[in-house]
């Protein structure tokens, strides 16, 4: 619990510094029709992914908690868990900014399932990882930088 709260504060503080820089945007409700997953998995930027998932922009949210290491000893396996405290969370997506394609995984959360998922992803290099949450038709995002370093003997 403490751990989570601390993470939440960290994430919040990191994003908070932006406040002044940030342009305020409006959210348009996501499309209701079925996703074109093939297209979504080929997107190369956050706005394109959001668009492919049926949205326009995403709001920064402190209610999304990313639990992941600050440094990954091996980019092939980076544990990432996302918890959303946003009511009516419908889906949680994990995006890796510097990967050849952005979207790593999307989880659809039916009613009764907690908006809390964990998996492991590949990262080609140090990058921001985004957790994109769709809740009540709107998109929200949080980010965390994960450094990828070289572990063993090299070669």
């Amino acid at each position, binding site marked *: 619990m403490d751990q989570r709260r601390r993470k939440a504060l960290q994430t919040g503080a990191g994003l908070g510094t932006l406040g002044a820089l940030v342009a305020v945007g409006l959210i348009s409700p996501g499309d209701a029709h079925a996703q074109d997953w093939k297209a979504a998995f080929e997107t190369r930027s956050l706005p394109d992914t959001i668009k492919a998932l049926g949205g326009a922009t995403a709001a920064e949210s402190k209610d999304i908690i990313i639990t992941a290491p600050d440094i990954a000893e091996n980019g092939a396996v*980076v544990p990432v868990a996302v918890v959303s405290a946003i009511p009516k969370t419908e889906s949680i997506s994990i995006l890796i900014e510097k990967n050849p394609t952005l979207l790593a*995984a*999307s*989880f659809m959360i039916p009613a009764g399932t907690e908006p809390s998922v964990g*998996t492991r992803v590949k990262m080609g290099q140090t990058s921001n990882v985004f957790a994109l949450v769709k809740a009540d038709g709107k998109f929200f995002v949080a980010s965390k930088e994960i450094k990828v370093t070289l572990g063993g003997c090299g070669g």
Partner: protein
Amino acid sequence: MADPMKIRATLQGDTVEVRVLMQHEMETGQRKDAAGKTIPAWHIQQVTATNNGKTVLSAQWGPAVSKNPFLSFKFKGGAKGDKVQITWTDNKGDKRTDEVAVS
């Protein structure tokens, strides 16, 4: 044929915690073999989880999910003895379903 998954589903209070390990290459389609030939993409695309037949999670995965994938999630409304079933489908059309009772 694909190897079985290892599934754990445990009831903690009113929440069932599910942890799954799947055996899969999760080949990205970006790597080259020793001869310099691109190794074609081969990865799980879709995962669905049901509890006594009711969908409790579905997921779409790309090749960036790690090899031998791990998945954890939680749902409410389950009871001991319920059947949690996980199915994955990969981009070659291979499919695997395994089941475990909530303990």
